[in-house]
């Protein structure tokens, strides 16, 4: 049987199912004779739950870091909270109700109280109360707490959903993969799976209904494809893909610590695209030379109000401090288009990609931009900050954004806040108008960064989310490549460096072409870095420039694509067997 879910964490897995069922607890309202004994039993169960929860906290501290473990300190306080414990004891005493029913009643009321609060953060705490209460209820009912830390065989975990305390308790060495009915790419489980590099497909809706313990399962965390009890042929296909994936990963890991240089020694930066401080382990593991694009919009998503200056400061500081002295390029809020936010009140637009988004919105809501600048500049004291603006179409927009930045800088300096002496400012080149006037923009900023996803869609006039014109969205279009070459050359004329941070930045096929154009920095998903490093090491500038000239002579994108694909494949095969030096 085949199922399809949401890709949450990449990797190929073939393994046996461990189905984790959350059995509903039977809670009856029976009364107790010996009230004192019941209260003593209740207190003993709290103590046992505490031991379990402390183990979860310690494991989280070890596997996930202090940040993620902090929530379990709060869980421990909830567990022994007098409001929960004393009220339960009182009910057992006064109504002679059994402790299970009494505690369930009290915990439900507490969760409901949080759910009724008018602040999203507090409403989410209801889940914490339920998570903690569930531990105690299971102790009281004598039902085993689902303890994923006890899993000793290597298994594929299949469950409806995972609570934070459950994911924290897992032994990542024993969990080959995770499949759940609920959840999506940004859910807690997905984030933890990516942090621990456990392949995962979520949102499968009914996987828990169609598998049983011991079933075989094969899945691809990248495509979201899941096969239950695969036949021999399918199994062999997955195992082969897995073998290739593993071998390549090992090979690539030998490149950690090496420099990002072409075969003839030209140094190029290969840096990472990230969305939050949670991506830092990957940035370090894959040896990025810094961050070329920190997308701040994730901080603003899935919530009901904009994050405070303090919250932003903490996130930016975590990244800057965590990677210092490596450079970190933070992009100001890029919302609208395909990333609408309810509380920003952008409203419905017929053409959101041509509408009110990114810097256009921010310049009309300077309070949002200035709060972001304050947080960034305060964080600049802890690392090597660079700031860039998305969706710049004209010099006026760049100058307006820089004015706000300067005003905030002066305010902070005047109030004695410590900030970096110098913070380079750059422009994202995503709109053809910006590419065409890149010589003008380059004189008013310190670096340019080409966002290819948008630059392509605006150059060829294709909405990249409209499926009917997907075939026209063309990263090999000569017009796109000419624009990019213009940008790089214009930047160099004024001594500015240029980076590419869209999908094309991590495309091995484009790498030699961009190298030949003189690109200074490639920014990409951390997992693509070592592959690009290997490809880069195979090219001399002379070869790359010859390839560039050949490509730029072509009139058709199909010809460009085949030239680049062949060149890349040829080089990759040459490089693969070669021992690293």
């Amino acid at each position, binding site marked *: 049987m085949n199922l399809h879910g949401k890709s949450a964490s990449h990797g190929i897995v073939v393994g046996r199912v461990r189905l984790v069922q959350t059995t509903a607890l039977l809670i009856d309202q029976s009364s107790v004779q010996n009230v004192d004994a019941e209260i003593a039993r209740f207190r003993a169960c709290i103590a046992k739950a505490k031991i379990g929860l402390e183990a979860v906290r310690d494991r989280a501290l070890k596997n996930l870091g202090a940040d993620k473990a*902090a*929530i379990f*300190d*709060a869980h421990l*306080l*909830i567990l022994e*909270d*007098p*409001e*929960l414990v004393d009220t339960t004891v009182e009910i057992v005493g006064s109504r002679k109700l059994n402790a299970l029913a009494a505690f369930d009643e009290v915990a439900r009321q*507490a969760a409901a*109280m*949080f759910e009724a*609060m*008018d*602040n999203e*953060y*507090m409403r989410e*705490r209801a889940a*914490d*109360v339920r998570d903690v209460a569930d531990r105690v209820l299971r102790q009281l009912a004598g039902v085993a707490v689902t303890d994923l830390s006890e899993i000793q065989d290597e298994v594929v975990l299949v469950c409806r959903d995972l609570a934070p305390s459950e994911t924290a308790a897992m032994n990542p060495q024993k969990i080959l993969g995770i499949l759940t009915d609920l959840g999506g790419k940004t859910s807690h489980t997905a984030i933890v799976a990516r942090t621990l590099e456990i392949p995962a497909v979520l949102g499968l809706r009914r996987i828990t209904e169609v598998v049983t313990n011991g079933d075989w399962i094969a899945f691809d965390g990248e495509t979201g494809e899941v096969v239950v009890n695969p036949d021999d042929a399918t199994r062999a296909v997955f195992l082969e893909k897995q073998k290739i994936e593993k071998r390549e990963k090992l090979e690539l890991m030998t490149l950690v610590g090496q420099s990002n240089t072409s075969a003839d020694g030209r140094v190029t930066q290969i840096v990472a695209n990230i969305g939050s401080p949670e991506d830092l382990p990957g940035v370090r593991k894959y040896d990025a030379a810094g961050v070329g694009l920190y997308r701040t919009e994730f901080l603003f998503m899935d919530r009901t109000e904009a994050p*405070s*200056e*303090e*919250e932003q400061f903490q996130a930016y500081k975590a990244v800057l401090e965590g990677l210092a002295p490596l450079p970190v390029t933070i992009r100001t809020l890029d919302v609208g288009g395909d990333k609408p936010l309810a509380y920003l009140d952008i409203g419905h637009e017929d053409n959101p990609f041509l509408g009110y988004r990114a810097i256009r919105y921010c310049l009309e809501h300077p309070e949002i931009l200035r709060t972001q600048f304050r947080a960034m500049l305060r964080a600049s004291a802890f690392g090597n900050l660079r700031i860039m603006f998305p969706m710049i179409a004209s010099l006026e927009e760049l100058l307006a954004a820089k004015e706000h930045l300067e005003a905030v800088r002066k305010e902070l300096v005047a109030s004695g806040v410590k900030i970096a002496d110098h913070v380079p400012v750059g422009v994202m080149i995503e709109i053809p108008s910006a590419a065409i006037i890149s010589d003008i923009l380059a004189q008013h900023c310190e670096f340019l960064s080409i966002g290819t996803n948008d630059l392509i869609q605006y150059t060829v006039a294709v909405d990249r989310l409209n499926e009917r014109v997907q075939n026209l969205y063309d990263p090999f279009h000569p017009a796109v490549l000419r624009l990019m070459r213009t940008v790089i050359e214009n930047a160099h004329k004024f001594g500015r460096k240029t980076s590419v941070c869209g999908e094309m930045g991590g495309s091995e096929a484009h790498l030699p072409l961009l190298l030949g154009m003189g690109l200074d920095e490639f920014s990409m998903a951390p997992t693509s870095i070592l592959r690009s490093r290997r490809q880069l090491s195979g090219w001399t500038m002379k070869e790359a420039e010859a390839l560039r000239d050949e490509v730029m002579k072509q009139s058709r994108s199909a010809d460009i694509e085949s030239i680049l694909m062949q060149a890349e494949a040829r080089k990759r095969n040459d490089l693969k067997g070669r021992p690293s030096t």
Partner: protein
Amino acid sequence: MEKTVRILNEEGLHARPAGLFVKKASEFVSTVEVRANGMAKNGKSIMALMSLGLAKDAEITITAKGADASAAVEALVDLVAKKFQL
């Protein structure tokens, strides 16, 4: 013994600061009560404190009763005033 103090940290009385408050309050034998928005809550209960839903700039009155009441109030006021930085 009681004192009024303003919450200065950006996130207000979220789980982490509320947890630190409870831990500190529990170091004392005195009872601790926190009053705000016309409600009085047990200062040794993280859930009670969070249920006040206090944001930055809210004023709270901390009252303690017992043998070490004044030390408790001083320590807690200090914690809040220092934005819960230990």
